[in-house]
């Protein structure tokens, strides 16, 4: 099939091409039937139930017996920041967890809109992330054995539009 197929005698190629275009239009227009809707619901539920890689993080004293999944911590940090920040959105949350399950640092990677005062957004993000960590893992006592440090919030990329709605990848395209 590497070479073009010869057009057999008696075959009207332009008519075949017109038929092909008409059939392709039909195929594109087929609406999703009830079965497809049913399948979609099932697939979505199963996908969302699939486990992601995670580590368990030890909560602060006096709740150090409690372990919280890194997935939950990441999701809550993202939610708090994305809901509160204007002209900035979370791109990555990196949690450094040692072998004992202690959270040693958090890095929040932001996408900001072009022209935003980065220092202000960074400080706001740092405070919001701290608050989210305190709520999920408990507030560590000063000098306590579970230090939670915000590594740094840095700006990885910028967007022209609202970074909650677009991504730098959209604007590179």
């Amino acid at each position: 099939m590497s070479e073009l197929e010869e057009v057999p005698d008696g075959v009207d190629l332009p008519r075949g091409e017109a038929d092909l275009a008409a059939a392709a239009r039909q195929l594109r227009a087929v609406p999703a039937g009830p079965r497809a809707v049913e399948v979609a619901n099932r697939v979505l539920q199963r996908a969302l139930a699939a486990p992601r890689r995670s580590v368990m993080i030890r909560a602060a004293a006096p709740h150090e017996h409690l372990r919280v999944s890194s997935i939950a911590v990441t999701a809550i940090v993202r939610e708090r920041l994305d809901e509160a920040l204007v002209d900035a959105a979370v791109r990555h949350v990196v949690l450094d967890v040692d072998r004992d399950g202690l959270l040693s640092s958090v890095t929040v990677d932001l996408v900001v809109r072009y022209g935003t005062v980065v220092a202000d957004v960074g400080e706001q993000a740092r405070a919001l992330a701290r608050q989210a960590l305190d709520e999920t893992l408990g507030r560590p006592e000063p000098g306590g054995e579970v230090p939670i440090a915000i590594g740094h919030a840095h700006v990885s990329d910028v967007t022209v539009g609202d970074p909650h709605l677009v991504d730098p990848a959209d604007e590179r395209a």
Partner: protein
Amino acid sequence: MSAEKPSAPPVGDASDHALARRAGLGDREAFAELFARLFPGTLRYATHLLDGDARAAEDVVQEAWIKAWRALPDFAGRSTVQTWLFTIVQRGTYDRRRRRRPLAVDDDLLEPLALRASQNRPAPSSRTDPEREYLQRELWETLQLALSELPWTQRSAWMLRELEDLSYAEIAQVLDTTPTVVRGQLHRARRTLAIRMEQWR
């Protein structure tokens, strides 16, 4: 310049990349929106690649979306989200086909294929006249059969271009080849399909 606001904008207004970023960080609502946008295309693609075998296509697509959910935290945005998903589906369907035992092709075996094509065809519209409806059905079934006869990469390239509107570069990413090769595959696919459409009518 930054100030607190009540809540983030609705997911429906977000781009696929922005949704993928949020879903990668655990936002289920963003994932559900991405799913609503892209699931129909992935199911259609898998169904046609697997000769209309709906059950096999559902399995492949389900596995692909599970992989996507797990891999989204590492999605770097180097391709479009749609292209990335079609690549996962493409690999799944390819593996599924490889596991199938080869079958000898004769008229008896083609009969169920034609039957499946007729089961998948669009529902007739009550407003079209019977003759037109018959011609539409005939076109539809002929295309289904002609597609099933195409070599794998030609069929895949044709569907991604004509049904999913991907660019040559995006198709090349899905099929792990070059846009030039895709152009050639599409040219051959269109010619073969047009010939079959004429021969089998």
